[in-house]
């Protein structure tokens, strides 16, 4: 399976925090509750489903998932 990479678009994120709730290993929140990808956004093996789950539940469509 190819490697996945995630990125939260800071202009779109409004802090619904669905991603943090569904994939806490992949996202972190700042002091205002807005989300960022953990590290450089590389999704560790085994967490691909969670990355897609977060992407498909973001109301602002702020999460990009790319396959490398």
């Amino acid at each position, binding site marked *: 399976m190819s490697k996945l990479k995630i990125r939260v678009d800071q202009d779109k994120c*409004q*802090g*619904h*925090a*669905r991603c*943090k*709730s569904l994939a806490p290993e992949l996202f972190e*929140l700042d*002091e*205002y*509750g807005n989300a960022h990808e953990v590290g450089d956004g590389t999704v560790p093996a085994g967490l691909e489903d969670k990355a897609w*789950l977060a992407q*498909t*539940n*973001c*109301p*602002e*469509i702020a999460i990009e998932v790319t396959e490398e």
Partner: protein
Amino acid sequence: MSDSPSASYLPEHPPVTDWVHDFDHTDPVWTDDPFPIWETLRAASPVVHTERFLGCYMPTTYQAVKEIAYDTEHFSSRRVIVRDVRPEISARAPPITSDPPEHKPAKQVLLPPFTPDAMTRLEPRVRAICNELIDEFIADGHCDAAARYTKHIPVRAIAHMLGIPEKDGDLFIKWIHQILELGIKSEDEMMNGVREMTGYFMAHLEQRKLEPGDDLISQLLRAKGPGGQPLTDEHVLGSLRLLLIAGIDTTWSAIGSSLWHLARTPADRERLIAEPALIPTAIEEFLRAYSPVTMAREVMKETSISGCPVKAGNMVLLSFPAANRDPAMFPDADKVVIDRKENRHAAFGLGIHRCVGSNLARMEMQVAIEEWLKRIPDFRLDPAGKVTWSEGTVRGPRQLPVLFGKNA
């Protein structure tokens, strides 16, 4: 309503016969069961209009709701309730009534106290509140779950956050009723509620200035505005007004609708008891299917939404609940699927006005349902009672008679 209505009440609304051209979200038919009405409106057009409320549009699709929510240039938040009257704007409640560029700094000061981490710290108190409430009626085998349970959870949680006595919650409930329900048709009721609430909070503000604490009122008094200066008392009072109005009957409604669903759906109840890890996913589905909050905008400049022209001077009934029932966005939109995997619902709004208390609401809902199911796993609607729903801006059960225990 009393036998001699105050002169300030406008005439009762005539019953609706043509929903597509004359909709009215305060009509008793809408209050009782809005879902088939929204389907009719959506089939007619992505945006419908009524001459009621001095002229008001309603987007009926997820797409149209989203376009309006993202368009702060043509649509202002300065009025967030669709009413019969449009008096001069007086009691503002930043940031919900703010537009850019004032919106962002007003919202930034409110965000840190409502992060998921902050809610985790509050959770044990909310769990205790739920159990204290259940203790009061569990032996009876029946209760009005709206009056005895769902209503009190958000009131007490917010009081706890603000550092004010939880017993003052009954006052909050009265003001909210005056502002959100009676206020649609009576300016006097709304202003009385606002005035009393402002006086109450002003006293707490003065007290916190003398003895600051860790509570949210003290945090707001310490917060700095965009230029580094402290917030004005007027701003702090406005934000407190917002927290109370927006944070109470909304979550009360969301918990109530969830319990209403579970009372009527034994299979979902049994599944959540067997798989408690599914509760957060189910909560998202309850939020989608029974979204409590409908917002409003005012059209400032002519534009078009989903191909429909909209004209300045009209209000917009921004129905996130109707958006969340749009089958173009959600397969089986009218079914409650408690393990729905893909759920981009807009119950907390879309764009810059995303509900600042969404993390609080989610935590309260989850804890309220978890504790109820632990202690009252088997319950059903009381066939001798009547479920009633609130009118207007926020939808949820206001009477929810249920049987359990020896009566289950």
